[in-house]
């Protein structure tokens, strides 16, 4: 443990010069390879100065479980074939929901080592082939199958237990959790790639209108919270978490092009540098130091901040791993934005909204944008890339000219955490 806090540096600087995201949602006709090609096409078409695919020298793709979701192992070569980039080396990285966060890290280190100048990294997950109970079991397999899963704990169950511990220890209540979802849906409504491009209010009004059309009793909900507190519209998944506290089941893919910083201006005048990368490892929740915090997130963020030479005060915005609403609150504390236990009040005060002092998940987060688990880490990086370049459209954060953004990508229930510091240098 002692060595994790050593300040580390990249062998040479690395920049992101292109980013592409597939549509997020449920696409019965598409396989993960198709989703990846869609993300790649989006990247190619948005490159500022164009791009020759033959420049790619190496690739890493994050994917949690094509084996169980699609009955397809060894997916990385298939991606290379579908892109027509064989025989360059491509490697699949699996770290549960942090798979593409870790894939990005491998790509950064491959360039920093001096071995390659241009590396493609991304992620993909095709989840909707399985029914919800099948997905529940696949996701649960990211926890300890010998000592957590036999107890009946599911993935939402473990985060439910974290939420209960947070509620016991601090003044956290159920409404704080629901408000995270309301905020993230407000952002997702402005994201054309999001799975849910609707606010909670819009969803509520639609449900009321449908009841009226059918001549049924129109529910008496007046506010978002009325709708979200109702067991019929928002059933329990794993108390204290309800349906709208959970990220959805999503098909999607993401990719970015990494290059050595010295050649970045061949591709764009506005590269985003990978100023700091951190990755750390945690234990099952029952063996963690605290039940209200992910130790790997604290360690990974400290590494990334140290490498970038920043403090929390320098960070303009963050994309954090809100696989569950409580996870966003815990992340906002682990990353140092708020003291332990202060995360819920920050939500109440709107401090994490797009116009707040610590905007979190301007993309809509995993909650509204969607959570194709293996694609999510790089998906977060893409949102920061666009925000720092001032090209996030309607959901562009309020503060002008943001220069530093971070991503926080969690695998499982904190077994892995990857934190990146991204910076606009020009």
């Amino acid at each position, binding site marked *: 443990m002692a060595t994790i806090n050593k300040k580390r540096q990249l062998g040479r600087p690395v920049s992101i010069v292109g980013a592409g995201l597939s549509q997020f949602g449920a696409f019965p006709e598409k396989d993960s390879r198709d989703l990846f090609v869609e993300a790649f096409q989006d990247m190619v078409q948005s490159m500022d100065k164009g791009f020759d695919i033959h420049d790619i020298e190496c690739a890493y793709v994050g994917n949690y479980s094509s084996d169980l979701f699609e009955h397809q192992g060894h997916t990385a070569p298939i991606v290379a074939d579908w892109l027509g980039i064989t025989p360059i080396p491509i490697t699949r990285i699996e770290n549960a929901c942090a798979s593409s966060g870790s894939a990005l890290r491998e790509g950064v280190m491959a360039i920093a080592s001096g071995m390659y100048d241009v590396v493609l990294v991304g992620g993909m997950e095709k989840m909707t082939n399985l029914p*919800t109970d099948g997905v529940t079991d696949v996701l649960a397999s990211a926890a300890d199958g010998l000592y957590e*899963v036999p*107890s009946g704990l599911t993935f939402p169950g473990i985060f*439910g237990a974290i939420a209960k511990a947070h509620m016991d220890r601090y003044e956290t209540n159920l409404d704080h959790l629901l408000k995270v979802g309301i905020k993230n849906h407000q952002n997702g409504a402005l994201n054309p790639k999001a799975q849910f491009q609707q606010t909670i209010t819009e969803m509520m009004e639609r449900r009321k209108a449908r009841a009226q059309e059918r001549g049924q009793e129109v529910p008496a909900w007046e506010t978002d919270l009325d709708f979200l507190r109702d067991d019929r519209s928002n059933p329990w998944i794993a*108390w204290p978490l309800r349906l709208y506290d959970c990220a959805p089941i999503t098909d999607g893919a993401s990719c970015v092009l990494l290059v050595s910083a010295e050649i970045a201006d061949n591709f764009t005048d506005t590269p985003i540098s990978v100023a700091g990368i951190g990755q750390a490892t945690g234990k099952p*929740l029952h063996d963690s130091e605290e039940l209200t915090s992910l130790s790997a997130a604290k360690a990974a963020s400290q590494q990334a901040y140290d490498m970038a030479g920043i403090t929390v005060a320098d960070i303009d915005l963050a994309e954090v791993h809100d696989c569950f609403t409580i996870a966003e609150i815990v992340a906002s504390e682990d990353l140092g934005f708020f003291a332990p236990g202060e995360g819920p009040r920050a939500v109440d005060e709107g401090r994490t909204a797009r116009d707040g002092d610590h905007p979190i998940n301007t993309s809509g987060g995993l909650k509204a944008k969607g959570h194709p688990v293996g694609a999510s880490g790089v998906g977060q990086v893409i949102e920061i890339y666009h925000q720092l370049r001032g090209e996030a459209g309607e959901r562009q954060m309020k503060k002008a000219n943001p220069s530093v953004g971070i991503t926080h990508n969690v695998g499982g229930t904190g077994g892995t955490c990857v934190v990146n510091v991204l910076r606009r240098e020009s």
Partner: protein
Amino acid sequence: MTSEFNAAAFYKHLKEGKKLMGVKCQDCGHLSPEPRPMCPVCHGFNMEWRQFSGRAKLSTFTCISIVSAAMAAKGYGRDNPCCAGIVTLEEGPRISARINGVDGRNPQDIKTGMDVVLDLEDVDEESPSLAFKPA
């Protein structure tokens, strides 16, 4: 050298021996309810069996409505949420476990901090799991 400290032995002790058997590191004294061949603290390989009393406190829990396939087979689900959580054993370590003898439909009535004891009433023959119940 093969080690006898593994999950198969843990669940065999639970099922046949009716006891919670973990390990203790003979070098540094570290306790782990999960039998493991190597001490994660001092990194020694001198582990020995250690019985845990089965007395614990409920540290946190959840009541799960969308259950795993294994819990669905036991009759849990939307109408009968499954309570699972983390208990802190009298000897110090924590472990994940099912929480029996509570009403998963009324989580507000389940109190963290309460005393629980090892529950061997329905240790499943096929897929045994660790369970506790209110003391």
